[in-house]
């Protein structure tokens, strides 16, 4: 069964350079039968990166892709607290570069209007927007978004494909929050492999809206793959979650860029 992982990082992986870390990630991915990785953010993370740091982190991903472009895709890391710099970075890395998606993390709540020009530009470029979402019983970070906030953003941009990274981690709430937003997919990664997550996502959203991701290197490929391989869902649903849905989301921009895949 082909596997594409929609959520990987260079952080938490051994290696002194982006290339060394990427080689490590690929080695682990090979052991788990994972063909493609989507990678974003640099070697050292920042909640609220300056424009310079944003460019540095994206440069590190670009460096990681140099040797591994046939195994990995890059998503550009943007900060909506710096809209103009983010738009410039979107053009540099996606329109004029090899990256194929947008990563938004915890700098600003995603339902705020500063997100709109970034999302509009991403939509023009056919780049899916992957937004971190969490609902923490211990309290979210100051700018950390919930799935409910992502649903607000997604309703304003119904033609742009969004990925609810982690589906809030409190997935029983997160799945409900995005249920009526057909342009939002639930991503399984970055939380403990709690049984029932995948079954509920498939039941409430349909398997076509569920994506496998690992959040490696902070998480293992194994713990997150178990969420799909151990779920009581059909084989066809597993195939959609493990690769087909990710391919479908990326296919428009991959075609636009002339990137070929197996299909």
């Amino acid at each position, binding site marked *: 069964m082909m596997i594409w992982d929609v959520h990987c990082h260079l952080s938490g992986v051994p290696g002194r350079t982006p290339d060394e870390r990427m080689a490590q990630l690929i080695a682990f991915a090979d052991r788990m039968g994972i063909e493609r990785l989507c990678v974003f953010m640099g070697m050292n993370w920042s909640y609220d990166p300056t424009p310079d740091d944003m460019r540095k982190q994206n440069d590190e991903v670009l460096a990681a892709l140099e040797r591994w472009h046939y195994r990995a895709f890059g998503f550009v890391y943007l900060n909506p607290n710096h809209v103009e710099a983010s738009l410039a970075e979107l053009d540099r890395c996606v329109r004029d570069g090899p990256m194929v998606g947008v990563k938004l993390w915890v700098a600003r709540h995603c339902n705020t209007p500063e997100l709109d020009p970034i999302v509009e530009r991403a939509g023009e470029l056919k780049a899916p927007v992957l937004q971190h979402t969490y609902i923490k019983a211990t309290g979210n970070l100051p700018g950390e978004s919930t799935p409910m906030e992502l649903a607000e953003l997604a309703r304003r941009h119904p033609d742009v494909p969004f990925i609810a990274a982690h589906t809030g981690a409190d997935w029983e709430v997160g799945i409900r929050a995005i249920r009526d937003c057909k342009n939002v997919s639930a991503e399984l990664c970055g939380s403990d492999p*709690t049984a029932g997550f995948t079954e509920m996502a498939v039941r409430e959203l349909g398997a076509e809206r569920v994506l496998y991701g690992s959040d490696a290197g902070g998480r293992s490929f194994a713990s997150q793959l178990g969420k799909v391989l151990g779920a009581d869902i059909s084989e066809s649903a597993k195939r959609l979650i493990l690769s087909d849905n990710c391919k479908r989301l990326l296919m428009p921009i991959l075609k636009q860029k002339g990137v070929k895949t197996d299909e």
Partner: protein
Amino acid sequence: MSSKGYMSDYSRREFIRTTTVVAAVAAGGLGPDAAEAVVVPGAAGTAGRGTLIDTNISLSRWPCRRLPLDETPALVARLRSQGVKQAWAGSFDGLLHKDIASVNARLAADCRKNGRGVLVPFGSVNPRLPDWEDDLRRCQEEHKMPGIRLHPNYHGYKLDDLAFARLLDLARERGLIVQLAVSMEDERTQHPLMRAPRVDVTPLIALLASQPNLRIVLLNWSRGVSSSLLAKLSAAGSVCFDIATLDGVGGVANLLEQVPLERVVFGSHAPFFYLESAVLKLKESDLSESQVAAIQAANARRLLGLPARG
């Protein structure tokens, strides 16, 4: 660029073998032979058929949701399908129920009735309850349990509590294995009315020094134990560590750089976690055959006082 190019960079045969194994996990409901291949691909002969011992499963109902495998027969079927020969079972009821004696009696009966020779009961003991010593006695004398499972964060005591030290004393005297669950659920995703901060295991360092023959296993520990604390615990006594909450790429191999191999045991935290998550961790790390064999079963057998191979 076409993905076909990368196949020339590494072994196509290796990739096909790996994807076949992953597909086998995905298929579920596998026979023991196939499950063995899932656990140790490429290491045939090391583990032998059905040699996986899961030291961390629970029966009955999780208080906040129904779990896909919380009916014991279904859980046992899944365990067997993944090659688990033996599973050490606590009870979710042991977290909050005050009538612990009935919890343990039901656990023992469930293991006998539905365990198909796989389930081994580990009763709950709450040293905050009056006459808890009799619960300990019943676990061993009436239910023939080889060990007990403790949940200090749900029972409301710290590990520097005198009752905990006395419990360790009595368990050691009886030759019981003590399993201590550091957490059951990520604090960030707990029900707001059922918050249970993970257990601070720091006091164990001093306690272990005075309990040289105590056999203790930490379950679901990794989020609450720093590298430095892990090293101190490992040096203090014969404490073992399960892999259920161990995470990060190559997590098992990373753990083996910090603690001796004989201290690491397989534990899944099923059915709260997907069993397959723990199974696949043994595949993700580049482990030798002897390392896999030790973690899969030999170390758990040693805890039971059995030969490493059986």
